[in-house]
């Protein structure tokens, strides 16, 4: 009786896992099927490194968009990751449980606010503020980075908090027993133990920032140019897809799927870099 239950469970789980992975594979195949032929037709170098984007005359260079996406994502992580991790550490280690029980749901609340609301607030509040104090049109790299940084905060905080909270108390007590101060036990023991969860939160956040569309369209300005200052308007890869998709046919449409492929590859590279960063530090 017990053996049957066990085999059934294993069978069900295998099916579940494979169907989940199959559906994810379906999406990947979909993107590549629509986008790859185009990249072969137009040539990778022209597509990736040319600066002219003008689908009506057959020019499909996305270089400014690639650079802009990278800048905006980097900016978002510069704002969101330190604040998020610091917040997670502080809440877990230095705040009483009861206070944390109120703050954590409030922060997660923000994960449920639609990106359009953030974008709208950006247009109404943030962009005018930037224009008044820093110059430029207000719709800029900075605006997009700030909004995205705020948007990924809940992801970084929630997942890091869980990772830190899961570190067994015995680790902390062990460090304290060896004479470490509170802070030393936190940064030498607890954080290291929670490292993989914290990195997971950053990777998920990076993915979210790179793939965000709606909020970025509303505050980045969407000009196709390589930015020279944080107050310059930019167009990210995702914004390009969303802006042009609605009326793109034929080659233009394939170009947008090809942009999806590029996004996928960029994310793969970023993730790989993050992974090797973990491995590198783990060997010390």
């Amino acid at each position, binding site marked *: 009786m017990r053996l049957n239950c066990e085999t059934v469970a294993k069978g069900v789980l295998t099916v579940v896992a494979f169907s989940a992975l199959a559906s*994810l594979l379906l999406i990947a195949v979909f993107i590549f099927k629509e986008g790859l032929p185009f990249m072969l037709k137009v040539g990778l170098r022209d597509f990736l490194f040319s600066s002219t984007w003008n689908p009506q005359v057959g020019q499909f260079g996305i270089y400014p968009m690639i650079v802009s996406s990278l800048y905006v994502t980097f900016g978002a992580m510069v704002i969101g990751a330190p604040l998020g991790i610091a917040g997670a550490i502080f809440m877990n280690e*230095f705040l009483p449980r009861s206070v944390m029980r109120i703050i954590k749901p409030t922060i997660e609340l923000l994960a449920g606010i639609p990106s359009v609301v953030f974008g709208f607030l950006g247009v109404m509040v943030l962009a005018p503020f930037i224009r008044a104090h820093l110059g430029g049109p207000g719709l800029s790299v900075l605006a997009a980075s700030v909004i995205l940084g705020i948007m990924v905060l809940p*992801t970084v905080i929630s997942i890091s908090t869980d990772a830190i909270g899961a570190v067994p108390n015995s680790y902390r007590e062990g460090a304290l027993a060896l004479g470490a101060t509170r802070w030393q036990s936190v940064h030498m023991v607890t954080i290291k133990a929670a490292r993989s969860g914290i990195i997971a939160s950053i990777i998920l956040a990076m993915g979210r920032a790179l793939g965000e569309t709606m909020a970025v369209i509303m505050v980045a300005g969407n000009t196709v140019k390589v930015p020279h200052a944080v107050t310059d308007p930019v167009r990210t890869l995702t914004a390009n897809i969303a802006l042009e998709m609605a009326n793109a046919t034929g080659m233009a449409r394939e170009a947008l799927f090809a942009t999806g492929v590029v996004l996928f590859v960029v994310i793969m590279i970023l993730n790989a870099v993050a992974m090797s960063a973990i491995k590198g530090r783990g060997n010390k």
Partner: protein
Amino acid sequence: MAVTVLGAATLLTVVVLVFIIAFVLVKGLPGVTWEFLSSAPKDMGKAGGIFPTLVGTVLLPLLAIAIALPLGVGTAVYLTEYTRENQLTRALRFGTDCLAGIPSIIFGLFGFIFFVVMLKMGWCLLSGALTLAIMVLPTIIRTSEEAIRSVPNAYREVSFSLGATRWETVLKVVLPNALPGIVTGMILGIGRSIGETAAVIFTAGSSLRMPMSVFDSVRTMSVHFYILAREGISNENAYATAAVLIISVLLINLVAYSMMHRFIAKRSK
């Protein structure tokens, strides 16, 4: 000294987040009356309420999570408990992480071409839920995996030494201990589903009728806000919708957490 820096960072975060919530509530709550909540939109959304969208916002993410949670947690369990860590699992994990970064508009297009047109389901709850489920699957898999991995091996060993099978161990020891992390993933997933606009418009549509079956189109509050704000129909109603949205998400989070705490408390008796 370091603690002060951390504290300051946390304070900054909380202040910013509270500011955003307060801004939307201050601008939006005045418009939220009982009539607003219980009647249908009239006059293109300039007047009337948002009741059909409330229903849509409850049903769509609920259905999406009902599909994604078992699939995601099941996959996470399979990857951690039933297979050894090898090239394949690492590749799979890498793949799911990458999919988390694909813009929602591509998922929306996929959903439109596959569910709405190819499978002829049309714009409906089911198309939307299936598409959203695929979108949040990477998040759920990843967070569940992290949560399950963080359960100390000692717990499993004790369970095995008492004669339990792997499945019994998973069900009675590992999962309950991984619950906080799994719930986090679920909440992030629900949050993302509620907040999605492009993917939802392409698959579940944006009809203002009350849905009578899973094959009916629905409009969620996020989509309603999107349309009101972008087409410049009514900023007041847009803010009011956003206010209701924020409060709904708060309620969902509170309910999920209190259920989880009650579950944990009962178990430790």
